[in-house]
């Protein structure tokens, strides 16, 4: 069984393999996170407006 050092070394290709995985998964996580935050901000703002007693609103006819 290879040691943990050998695993991280990736047969000498560590400098290529690990950034590839890190950037791909990192960017996916970042997009998911930023999307989530934007949704929550919009929902919070909507809840605040509705709580302030605004009546049901007509959606914009795009």
């Amino acid at each position: 069984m290879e040691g943990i050092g050998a695993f991280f070394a990736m047969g000498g290709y560590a400098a290529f393999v690990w950034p590839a995985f890190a950037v791909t998964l990192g960017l996916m996580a970042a997009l998911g996170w930023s999307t989530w935050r934007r949704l929550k901000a919009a929902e919070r703002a909507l809840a605040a407006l509705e709580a302030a007693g605004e009546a049901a609103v007509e959606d914009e006819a795009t």
Partner: protein
Amino acid sequence: MATEAMALSQTDKAPARGAAGLHRFANPARFSRLSARLLPWTAALAVGLIALGLYLALFVAPADYQQGQSVRIMFVHVPSAWMALFCYSFMALASAVGLIWRHPLADLAAKATAPVGALFTFTALLTGSLWGKPMWGTWWVWDARLTSVLILFFLYLGYMALWQAIDDGAKAARAAAILALVGVVNVPIIKFSVEWWNTLHQPASVLRLDGPTIDASMLWPLLVMALGFKAYFVTVLLLRLRTELAERRLRAFRRRALAEG
């Protein structure tokens, strides 16, 4: 909520028969309920499949006899590339539906897809470079596959820029839809580039008429990762659609407040 439904149904005077079924989901309240039910599942699928895919890719799949451990880059590179093409195709289809049938959610679905597609195109290019440097000896080459994928990336950016640049939502949707449809010719070009031209990029080894040439020990981790990336796309798409609808309602609220105010 009822007012919204009525307002929307009145803007769709003559839905084409083919899209009549889809018009059920034009109602934002219905979409909101459906997406709220689906989201926990798609998110769990995405996390679970990607986690499993990573385990298979890093610990189970064998090293390649020629490429050694660098072949593991394939397990992020190929799913990214597949998603880049899938997202653009989906975006073009949604744009067509929005243009032809004026389905209200179609334009928003296309808009919501673009950043995800752009992200995967970028990671496909980046991981491809990281794989190409040790294997081909170069970070980049202007062969047909790489060049056409770079063009795909610029198409995504142009599409997103149109939405940002045009203030009127309906006009932005139409302009962006036209760009998406004009650019869709790039998708088959990318797919067949490795057959039509003499490319440094290798030919297809999975999606071929004669079946995959890739070994099962590598094919399964690849498919698991690809499915995980798809589930991730559905999750982010649903989240972004909910956001678009919420922000539209916010803008309507604020316009009303200004008008009354």
